[in-house]
């Protein structure tokens, strides 16, 4: 019993309360309404996913045929009947050298996903072997005060995901550390609000690309003596600066709009400033602060791709860009894989934030 209580709590916390019903399906505690609700919450999404894949498949096929016909017609016009026939045979055979380059089908994307995982396994094995081989030598180098030899092979898809996550978390943390305290001060003091308002209004709408360039100008000069790769620093600072505005504005608004009754209670009790801020104002504005933080995290994840691409930081953004430039046969499929990975991670990040919000804030928020 205790276990199922915790399960309920966890699923409620991450906004997936319907898991409770699924659990009840197996424990036999089901009402008629719950059956309906389970059907709505499980079968309907599954059906819509299947429909989506079906439409995608049909669309990809139509595009594929159009591209193939165009290719054959072009060969016929440029090179004559024989070449066109040869191309037709080649396309039909599925040979990778002559495939039309267009929207990949779901099956191709799944294939690319598996090949990316396989590639990851190969690279990890390679890395482990390298580590083993250089372990003795590195130990010696460290003793001599030299830098150890590190693996410099190309990163796998999973490495790139991890890199992107690190960048987003560093950027998010930066946004949090700047925006929350600043927002509190701005919300508390009308003077500070007037001082900062123009700043917020002007810099809030600036595009991620411009933020990247600004950060690049500054960080490049600051790190001029360092030989290390500054792409990570530049990209996480850019991500943080792009995404912090939602938190800043929401925090300031939350702090400024604390229920007047609570403020009156604090006044009657003559609470000191410290107590007033930490016992009344902050807890009361937590829901809005978290709304801001959730927007910040999703914006951070969204602008990350563009910024990594610009900064040449080896994460998902760079992966997408390189695949696009690469133009290999399965590049398009890999880009779609990256798209899904980006989407799913974004969704999970949002749910994690929701769980944290619901565990610390007095207002329980449901997932949309």
């Amino acid at each position: 019993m205790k276990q199922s209580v915790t399960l309920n709590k966890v699923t409620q916390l991450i906004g997936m309360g319907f898991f409770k019903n699924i659990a009840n399906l197996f424990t036999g505690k089901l009402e008629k309404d719950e059956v309906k609700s389970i059907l709505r919450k499980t079968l309907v999404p599954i059906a819509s996913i299947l429909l989506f894949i079906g439409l995608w498949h049909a669309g990809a096929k139509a595009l594929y045929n159009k591209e193939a016909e165009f290719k054959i017609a072009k060969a016929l016009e440029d090179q004559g009947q024989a070449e066109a026939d040869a191309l037709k045979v080649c396309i039909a055979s599925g040979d990778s050298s002559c495939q039309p380059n267009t929207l990949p089908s779901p099956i191709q994307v799944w294939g690319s996903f598996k090949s990316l995982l396989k590639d990851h396994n190969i690279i990890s094995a390679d890395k482990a072997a390298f580590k083993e081989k250089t372990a003795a030598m590195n130990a010696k180098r460290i003793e001599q005060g030299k830098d150890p030899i590190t693996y410099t092979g190309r990163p796998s898809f999973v490495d790139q995901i991890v890199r992107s996550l690190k960048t987003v978390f560093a950027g998010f943390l930066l946004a949090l550390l700047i925006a929350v305290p600043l927002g509190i001060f701005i919300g508390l003091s009308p003077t500070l609000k007037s001082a900062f308002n123009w700043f917020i209004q002007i810099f809030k709408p600036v595009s991620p690309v411009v933020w990247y360039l600004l950060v690049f100008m500054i960080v490049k000069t600051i790190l001029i003596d360092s030989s290390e790769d500054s792409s990570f620093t530049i990209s996480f600072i850019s991500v943080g600066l792009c995404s912090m505005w939602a938190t800043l504005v929401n925090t300031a608004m939350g702090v400024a709009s604390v229920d007047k009754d609570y403020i009156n209670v604090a006044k009657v009790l003559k609470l000191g400033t410290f107590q007033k801020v930490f016992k009344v104002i902050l807890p009361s504005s937590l829901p809005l602060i978290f709304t801001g933080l959730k927007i910040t995290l999703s914006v951070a994840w969204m602008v990350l791709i563009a910024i990594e691409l610009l900064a040449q930081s080896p994460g998902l953004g760079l992966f997408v860009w390189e695949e696009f430039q690469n133009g290999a046969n399965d590049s398009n499929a890999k880009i779609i894989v990256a798209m899904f990975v980006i989407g799913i991670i974004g969704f999970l990040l949002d749910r994690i934030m929701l769980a944290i919000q619901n565990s610390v804030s007095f207002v329980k928020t449901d997932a949309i």
Partner: protein
Amino acid sequence: MSTDTIQNTDTAFTENGISYPSKVMLDLKDLKKVYPTPKGDYVVLENLNLQIMREEFVTIIGHSGCGKTTMLSMIAGLNPISGGNISVLGNPVKGPGPDRGVIFQAPSLMPWMTALENVSLGVNQVFPHATKKERLDIAKYYLHKVGMDGSFNKKANELSQGMQQRVGIARAFAIKPKVLLLDEPFGMLDSLTRGELQDILIEIWNKEKITAVMITHDVDEAIFLADKVVMMTSGPRAKIGDVLSIDFERPRTRKSVLEHDDYYKYRKHLIDFLEH
């Protein structure tokens, strides 16, 4: 019965080694409140004089918008005084403070705190020199008094409106104010809950005898609770219109009050004033 001030036998008294020259706890003299508007000043209260004695329970009734709440929040120090003055035991009011506890119309509990934490917030502030245990005991004692046993650790937003207002009462009494100000505390409750809370309020009050000023719209509530019912004239320029002494013995029960011969006389007096 005077129209402006409540006449009482005023004598000096001593409490906790401090002697006070008079029994007047709360003194409002020529009180005035003006709200500036684009069309000129709007005078809410003018020439308002009221004296409230120690250990007196006074209810204030008047039409909506006449300035009752304005007057009460001025006594609480939450609303600046435009003219005249308010003093508590001879000391002029200069701002809010825990010597004047307030029970607001909305319970105004911090929803992220438990019932106990809400009461403790005030207790810890007012009794900084007491030990942790003593302060906790005070908070628990008052929560017990309002019938909140077993719900000490419930979050305020998990409590019903009536339960929340019980905690509000406990919080106000626990800081042991000199004056208790109640701004229609039961106005948002259904009549059953209201009756329950009136009983709780009067029971604690009988024990603590804290001078109380309570705004209400309910004529029966005004009579049941009060030693004196103060009637305010309609605004603008509202002032004290009439004062009615309620001479029922304390402790009172609802039944004895309703069955008393004078009850309908008092009730008629108040309704005549309000309909006038």
